[in-house]
């Protein structure tokens, strides 16, 4: 134990950088607003995470128990509920902290160039990004749900602040400011809906387990001691949190709007932090989620549907960042689909005691997590690439671009690599994980009463793979090939070094990271059950068998063929112009085209709902408050003032009158008191 003991430093270093940069950034670093300190802090965290992971994988704890945890009492709730603080290192948290810190570091380096024209505001930018990274790294190393929830919310806050980075005095004018302010609010409120659900889940777990430590909640003995229905309810509520954070159906609408922030922020949210937290949460909660196959089925259905639904909206969008945003939603859906399918098999395997099925299900877990990391690399690459394009052309509309390949060599090649990877072109990173997911979903269709659902989901997923390849290459061809349009003619050319070097580094990973699957990576990331206990990692299986599985499976070739067809179509439509896209959409008049541009009318639905349920009810309450409640208070006081005058006329000076008034008053009082006694006695 050398480095693992210092795991708490991993989130703490960026947190300290946040404070220093936030208060003094412009003082010690006038040119970059403290940017270098933020980069250095995240870099140290990144190195530390690698060292911790290396130590963990070589330690006996990895083989024996699967995790290293340390817990201190933070404070105690009365009734024996301990709230702890500490760290928890296992394969999942190692993976999360490595890729999150590494990609964040690259994004920060890129920001030096991208945000160079922001002047004094850079201080705020770098401070908030450092806090964002703190949130993600803290989430990864937390040892209990409450601590995890705190970092979860810190990320929500940072996404709010960064999406709204330009929510006042936007460089592009007032409308853009309004837009950013409203997008930031929407992001926070929609994810808050999920957070509240997650919080409710935590109440249930805390009450049932008397603790929120992972070591307690994920313990098979303590799970067995808790009411099964409560666990199912808690799992669903916790998944509600993941739906909000990872923008799954129906809480997906905030993510496309969140494009109002700087592109680097989008890259951060989509690749390294924020939306990955939801996937992490589901992966982390496998031991309780797999208590019921229904929960896992629900996860898979939400994921599979979102993958398809979001991909449709990317098909005809003209904004380069929005296309990428929808693709993120879609890819996140894939991850949930994989986790759900794998978990479904594990859950059924646990019910029937079928260990082979559990082992087969753990492949879904590997696929989901691998896709999460692959996606982090290629999506960071794509967003930073699109940022480079926007930086150079000054527009986000792809219709104003075109033919940029000659002016921006590095950007176009790296983005091509990213697009090939996300499209699932053979041997690129995305190919391996996506194919593993498809295979796993089809496999899950063989088991349980709800197996047919997975067949449907598989069909959706295959169609989605086709659509993904199509819209990604539509984007690439529209931007880099074809005729030049006005903005690309006036572009500044290639971006500075600080921006292109991160692109090159990322493209190496976006191409090659999938190969780790064959070097035992799946065993590092696997999940298995030993002696009734869930364990992450430790299954020694090599990985070469995947190669055989992939290439003996006929469906793999079908998917590859679909991907190639989609790329071919996109090339003909947007580079060569041989096929006119208008043929398919009735010149933009068909109902489907409109539905897609209007995002299936989801934003309108949300606006209406929140307006009616929020402001509408509020107006009603305000009316009641000022007219009925306050009205009766004022009415009463007026009545008292008025009757005062009346009563003054009763000052007759006649003792008989007074006496009868006193007696009358006493009678009234007596009746009132008796009535009160009867009422209270019956209470």
């Amino acid at each position, binding site marked *: 134990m050398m480095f693992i003991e210092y795991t708490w430093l991993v989130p703490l270093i960026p947190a300290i950088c946040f404070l220093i940069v936030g208060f003094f950034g412009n003082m010690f670093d006038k040119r970059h607003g403290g940017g270098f300190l933020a980069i250095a802090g995240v870099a140290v965290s990144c190195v530390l995470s690698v060292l911790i992971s290396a130590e963990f994988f070589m330690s006996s704890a990895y083989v024996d128990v699967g995790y290293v945890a340390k817990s201190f009492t933070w404070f105690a709730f009365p009734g024996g509920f301990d709230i702890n603080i500490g760290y928890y290192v296992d394969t999942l948290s190692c993976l999360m902290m490595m890729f999150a810190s590494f990609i964040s570091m690259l994004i920060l380096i890129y920001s030096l160039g991208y945000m160079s024209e922001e002047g004094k505001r850079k201080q705020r930018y770098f401070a908030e990004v450092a806090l964002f990274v703190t949130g993600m790294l803290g989430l990864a190393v937390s040892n209990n749900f409450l601590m995890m929830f705190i970092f979860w919310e810190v990320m929500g806050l940072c996404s709010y602040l960064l999406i709204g980075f330009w929510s006042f*005095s936007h460089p592009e004018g007032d409308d853009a400011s309004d837009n950013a302010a409203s997008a930031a609010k929407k992001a926070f409120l929609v994810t808050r809906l999920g957070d509240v*659900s997650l919080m409710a889940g935590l109440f249930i777990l805390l009450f049932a387990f008397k603790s929120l430590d992972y070591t307690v909640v994920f313990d098979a003995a303590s799970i067995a001691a808790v009411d099964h229905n409560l666990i199912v309810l808690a799992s669903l509520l916790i998944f509600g949190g993941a739906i909000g954070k990872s923008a799954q159906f129906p809480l997906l609408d905030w993510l496309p709007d969140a494009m109002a922030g700087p592109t680097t922020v989008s890259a951060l949210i989509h690749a390294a932090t924020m939306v990955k937290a939801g996937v992490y949460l589901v992966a982390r909660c496998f031991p309780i989620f797999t208590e019921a196959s229904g929960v896992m089925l629900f996860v898979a259905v939400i994921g599979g549907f979102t993958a398809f639904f979001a991909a449709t909206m990317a098909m005809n969008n003209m904004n380069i960042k929005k296309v990428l945003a929808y693709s993120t939603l879609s890819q996140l859906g894939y991850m949930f689909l994989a986790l759900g399918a794998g978990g479904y098999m594990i859950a059924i395997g646990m019910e029937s005691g079928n260990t082979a099925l559990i082992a087969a299900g753990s492949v879904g877990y590997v696929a989901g997590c691998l896709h999460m990391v692959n996606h982090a690399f290629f999506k960071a690459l794509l967003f930073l690439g699109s940022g480079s394009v926007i930086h150079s052309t000054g527009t986000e509309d792809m219709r104003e671009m075109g033919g940029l390949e000659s002016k921006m060599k590095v950007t176009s090649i790296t983005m091509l690599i990213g697009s090939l990877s996300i499209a699932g072109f053979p041997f690129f990173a995305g190919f391996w994980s996506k194919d593993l997911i498809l295979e796993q979903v089809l496999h899950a269709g063989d088991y349980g009463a709800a197996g047919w659902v997975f067949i449907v989901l598989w069909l959706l997923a295959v169609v989605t793979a086709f659509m993904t390849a199509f819209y990604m290459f539509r984007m690439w061809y529209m931007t880099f090939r074809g005729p030049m349009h006005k903005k690309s003619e006036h572009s500044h050319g290639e971006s500075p070094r600080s921006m292109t070097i991160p692109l090159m580094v990322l493209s190496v990973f976006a191409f090659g990271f999938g190969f780790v699957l064959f070097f035992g990576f799946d065993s590092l990331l696997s999940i298995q059950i030993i002696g009734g206990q869930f364990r992450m990692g430790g299954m020694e299986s090599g990985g070469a068998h995947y190669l055989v599985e992939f290439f003996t499976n006929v469906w793999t070739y079908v998917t590859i063929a679909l991907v190639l067809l989609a790329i071919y179509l996109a090339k003909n439509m947007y580079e060569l112009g041989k096929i006119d896209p208008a043929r398919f959409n009735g010149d933009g008049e068909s109902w489907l085209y409109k539905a897609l541009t209007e995002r299936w009318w989801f934003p309108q639905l949300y606006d209406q709902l929140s307006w009616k349920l929020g402001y509408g009810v509020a107006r009603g309450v305000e009316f009641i408050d000022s007219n009925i409640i306050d009205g009766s208070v004022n009415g009463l006081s007026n009545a008292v003032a008025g009757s005062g005058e009346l009563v003054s006329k009763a000052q007759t000076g006649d003792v008989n009158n007074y006496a009868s008034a006193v007696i009358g008053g006493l009678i009234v009082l007596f009746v009132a008191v008796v009535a009160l006694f009867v009422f209270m006695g019956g209470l």
Partner: protein
Amino acid sequence: MFDLPEIPYLLTLLIAIPLIGAITTLFMGGEKQKHARMTSIAFSAVTLVLAVYLMLSNDYGAYAESHTWIDTAGLKMSYMLAVDGLSILMVFLTALLLLVVSVFTFEQHDKPNYFFALLLAMEVGLMGVYLAADYFLFYIMWEVVLIPMYFMISWFGGPRRHYAAIKFFIYTHVASLVMLIGIFAIVFQAAAGGVADFSFAAVLAGSAAFSGVFQSLAFGLLFFGFAVKMPIVPFHTWLPDAHTEAPTAGSVLLAAVMLKMGSYGIIRVCLEVLPDGAVSWQAIMVVVALVAIVYGAYACIAQNDLKKMVAFSSVSHMGMVLLGIACLSEIGVMFAIFQMFAHGLITAVLFMTCGLAHDLYDTREIPLLGGLAAKTPIYATFMMFGFLASLGLPGLVGFWGEFGVIFGFYEYALSINMIWLIVFCLLSLLLTAGYYLWAIQRSMFGRLTTKLSDKVMSRIRDINKAEGIAMGIMCLMIAVFGLWPDLALSIISPYSSALIGVI
């Protein structure tokens, strides 16, 4: 926490020092009035030091004081002071806020000597309420708080100040009369025909013989008195008016410590003395609290005045306090007390920022503002911090209050098989985030407003040093107690566990 040497008459000093300060500043007329603020700062700083010293010492019981005041054949009233885990945080909060608002009120050019004298007089009353251990003293101090606040609103308030001041005075005064009847009832019932001793201890000792019906009735009277002060829907309408019209310093004290008198009274009197009454009123308290939480949150959404919105948010958050109390469980009461403290810290920042809006922009109407973060970034940062703290961002103090109370309520809801009741609490969390973010979006973000006159626009300034220091101190407290809630919880928990032992 520490074994500190005992300071004799410490509790009396906590009342006497502000009193001397109030008298001193009051007579600083003419030329000397420009020193009134510094005098107030000096006296409140000394009080704060003593309060912190008291809070950090180990044995609160050792500080109790008792001097017989009126001792006749039938009545016994004493000057008794005591402090325990329930009151110490409120004492600290009062002392802290008085210093902070004195620092904050930088530009009081109109009769500053009266202004600061009233502030210090309020501290006298507040300290008295939280330290009193005798019902008679308690009631006197309760009324002492009322009077300076009345003058504060009607002399230094906004355009509708006379209406608001009168409404505040009559409404709360009527309530305190009802409370007085309740006090008489429990004191004489406890005396059972003997000498009516007004001390807390004597009433508590006599309360063992109270019948269930009597407890319910007395609880009702006292609860009404305290509920108006808290305030609880539907007795809350004095609050928005009083807040809107009061000067910033007055609003801060009103929301941060004066409202707590109500919840303090419910715990101190209703729960301690009338536990059976509390049990029979439990269902009503729960319903009222849930209504207040959701109703207050919805009312906030409809407000256009920043200060009025924050005033309604107090209704919602004090409903949270009542909900914790209504659980009648250790967790519930403990976090209700914590929430009182948390709300005091947070609401001070809220009222300082929202009050400043009038100084900076000449209006607090949200529709007239917009995009002002560009002009006043530091101000906007403080506002954002306050709003985030109030909407319960984890890591800040407000989160623990809400988390604990809702968890306590979950426990209660589970025990009566109505787990769905927590949906109302969760709804309020969502609404709270909604109205705050919507308000800051409309006032600070988006396009720069064009609805303010050029004259106002040209003289917009960011906050000055004094205001920055005052709000900075409060923000620091919010963060410290948020990261280390045990600092307050460890003080509360002996009290709350002893109290629940009785119920």
